[in-house]
């Protein structure tokens, strides 16, 4: 009986035997603790709710604001990028139109010279043909035949023989025909000679006309695209039509090839630069001759960029756009002179390089010759000892000198060419720089939009987790809340005589209810104006 009572009451003695929950024995103590906890939670509901609000809703709102900001700026960035691409495409087309116009102008100038003689010849040939045709139409063969027959009649009367008659008629007809055809023969010759010429001239004119039409088509096509770019509101569509990646890749490949030339150049001039700047110092971990060689290569490249810009092949330097033609010509020749000087410098350095190598080898040889055989280093595997003995020394020396001279010539050629090749590397540089900017802008705008999506997702997640936490909280303190509502409802009924319209009018736990003391909602325009400071705060 005592045991059952203990079980029913959940006394500490029996609970201690059956275990505990966080140090609280199962049974009544645990129940009391839970009830106490629920009551504490009910009492602390308002501050805790504010804490939850602060943690989840404010954080969510901040993420939401960030999301909005990023979306807006990402779209703006994309729009700006599209605008720039379209503007660049329009510039390209404008240049192309100008170039085509120029080409057509020059062609038109030539056209008058080309077509003038053709037309004159054609006119002459046509006139001759017309004359010949007139002469041909004037011939009346029937009349000629009749006249011939009539002329043959008197002889028919004098001679009675039939054979003789036939003969006379035939002879008279032939003579008459011949007389008629004699003046026509030159006309026929003219027709024969002029017909192919006329055909040739006609072909030439057709070709000229086709070329002209082709250019006109190109201009029209370019102009249509230009018009579309200028008038179309769909900038993204316009931007999508302009190819960015493929020219960029091609430019990268060409630049990579040019860079391999730079490396070659670098190894050619690195060693002889020691003769100019000396050795023994390092700048930022790079040897002084290496540093000087790099500087020379950079200077060559800069001279190349100036040359290409001054020549109008590229538009990398904005100052050249506003320069007069005369100034640009001066800059072109200055850059050209610098490149030529660099070319000569490199050629000189390549000769110096050979001299240095020779001197170093001679010094090493001298040091090795002085050594006794016992101390001489062993010959290397790729230089067999018997090879020296097999070749006579004089012949070997001549062969070596010949090889050396050839290699020097090869180095001279390389040294002379490479600065100009470096200058040519400036051509794809413009495409690389411009398209890289476009690509980075596009990637940047996409990154912003992606971040905006992540921020918005986080905002929604935070808000909903907060709501879920509040719901769980309300579920835990459901009982005291219910009691509170009942009590408040009864009191309100008493005060208002049972006319309470809403039970939860002052329930602080309702999330979407607005506080009666809260300020009225701002108009939308004001909210838009206030958004900026809020964004800054966020």
């Amino acid at each position, binding site marked *: 009986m005592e045991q059952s009572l203990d079980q029913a009451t959940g006394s500490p003695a029996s609970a201690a035997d059956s275990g505990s929950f966080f140090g609280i024995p199962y049974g009544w103590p645990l129940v009391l603790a839970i009830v106490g906890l629920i009551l504490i939670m009910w009492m602390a509901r308002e501050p805790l709710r504010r804490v939850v609000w602060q943690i989840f809703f404010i954080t969510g709102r901040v993420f939401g604001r960030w999301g909005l900001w990023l979306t807006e700026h990402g779209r703006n960035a994309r729009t700006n990028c599209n605008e720039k691409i379209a503007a660049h495409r329009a510039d390209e087309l404008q240049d192309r139109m100008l170039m085509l116009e120029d080409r057509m102008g020059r062609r038109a100038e030539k056209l008058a010279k080309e077509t003038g003689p053709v037309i004159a010849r054609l006119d002459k040939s046509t006139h001759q043909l017309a004359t010949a045709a007139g002469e041909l139409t004037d011939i009346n063969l029937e009349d000629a035949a009749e006249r011939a027959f009539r002329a043959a009649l008197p002889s028919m009367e004098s001679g009675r023989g039939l054979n003789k008659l036939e003969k006379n008629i035939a002879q008279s007809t032939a003579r008459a025909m011949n007389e008629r055809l004699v003046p026509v023969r030159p006309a026929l010759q003219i027709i024969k000679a002029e017909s192919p010429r006329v055909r040739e001239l006609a072909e030439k004119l057709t070709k000229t006309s086709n070329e002209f039409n082709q250019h006109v088509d190109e201009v029209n096509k370019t102009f249509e695209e230009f018009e579309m770019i200028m008038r179309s509101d769909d900038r993204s569509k316009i931007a999508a039509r302009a190819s960015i990646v493929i020219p960029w890749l091609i430019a990268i490949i060409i630049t990579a090839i040019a860079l391999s030339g730079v490396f070659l150049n670098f190894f050619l001039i690195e060693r002889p630069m020691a003769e100019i700047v000396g*050795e023994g110092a*390092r700048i930022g971990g790079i*040897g002084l001759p290496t540093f000087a060689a790099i500087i020379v290569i950079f200077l060559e490249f800069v001279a190349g960029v100036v040359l290409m810009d001054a020549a109008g092949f590229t538009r990398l330097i904005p100052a050249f756009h506003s320069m007069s033609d005369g100034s640009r010509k001066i800059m072109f020749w200055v850059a050209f002179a610098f490149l030529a000087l660099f070319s000569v410098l490199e050629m000189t350095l390549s000769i110096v390089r050979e001299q240095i190598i020779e001197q*170093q080898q001679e010094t090493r040889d001298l040091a090795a010759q002085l*050594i006794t055989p016992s101390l001489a280093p062993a010959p290397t595997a790729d230089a067999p000892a018997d090879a020296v003995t097999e070749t006579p020394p004089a012949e070997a020396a001549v062969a070596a000198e010949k090889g050396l001279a050839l290699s020097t010539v090869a180095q001279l050629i390389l040294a002379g060419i490479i600065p100009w090749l470096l200058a040519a590397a400036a051509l794809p540089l413009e495409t690389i720089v411009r398209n890289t900017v476009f690509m980075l802008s596009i990637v940047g705008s996409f990154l912003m939009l992606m971040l905006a999506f992540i921020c918005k997702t986080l905002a929604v997640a935070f808000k909903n987790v907060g709501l879920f936490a509040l719901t769980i909280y309300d579920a835990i303190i459901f009982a005291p809340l219910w009691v509170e509502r009942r009590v408040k409802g009864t009191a309100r009924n008493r005060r208002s005589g049972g006319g309470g319209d809403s039970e939860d009018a002052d329930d602080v736990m309702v999330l979407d209810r607005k506080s009666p003391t809260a300020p009225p909602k701002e108009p939308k325009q004001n909210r838009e104006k206030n958004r900026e400071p809020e964004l800054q705060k966020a």
Partner: protein
Amino acid sequence: MIGRSFLNAGLALAIAALVGCGLVTSTNRSVFFIFDVSGTYVKSVPDAAKLANITIAELQPGDWIGASQISACSFSEKEIILQRQLPTTPSLAASAKRELFEAFNTYAGGVKSAKFTDIRGALAQASDELKRRPEAARFIVLFSDMVADYSKSCDTANIKLDLAGIHVIAANVIKSTPGDPEKYFAVLKEWEAQVVAAGGTWSLVSSPDQLPKLVNEL
């Protein structure tokens, strides 16, 4: 010529500015050769001089070279054979190297034997000279049998050596006691311990091609 002068002046100014910023460092090295002229080693001096020549042939323009000999009382300016810095340009450096070859050959041809072997004094002398040099990499190349023999008037056996930052290379160490290899190895070990105790680092070179590599690649 004028252009070159302008270029050099410009580079000098640029280097001065960079030195001020601490961006410019020197790659030059100073190498001090010590020749043992005691009775047991004097015959090997020509070989040692030739080894020194091979090493010099591989040195870089701007490197510094010094040489002295081990005699009865080595810690003295009188024992210094030569001191020279190679010019910084390769062509002039090559000419200077040839002059050094001549100097060493002349020295090796007319070397006179000494009665005692003051190795520690020679090391102290070389260390003193190297410490005055601005080069960061410092080497002492010792051509000796490493058997010390101090005179009473000049006993440097117990002097304190300071070889901090110096790499000591023993080259062409002849075996003066063929019947007692252990003694040879013991002597080398003892010298290594002394050099390390003095703050230096130690290397033993056995073949001629190792020495230039060691000096240039360390």
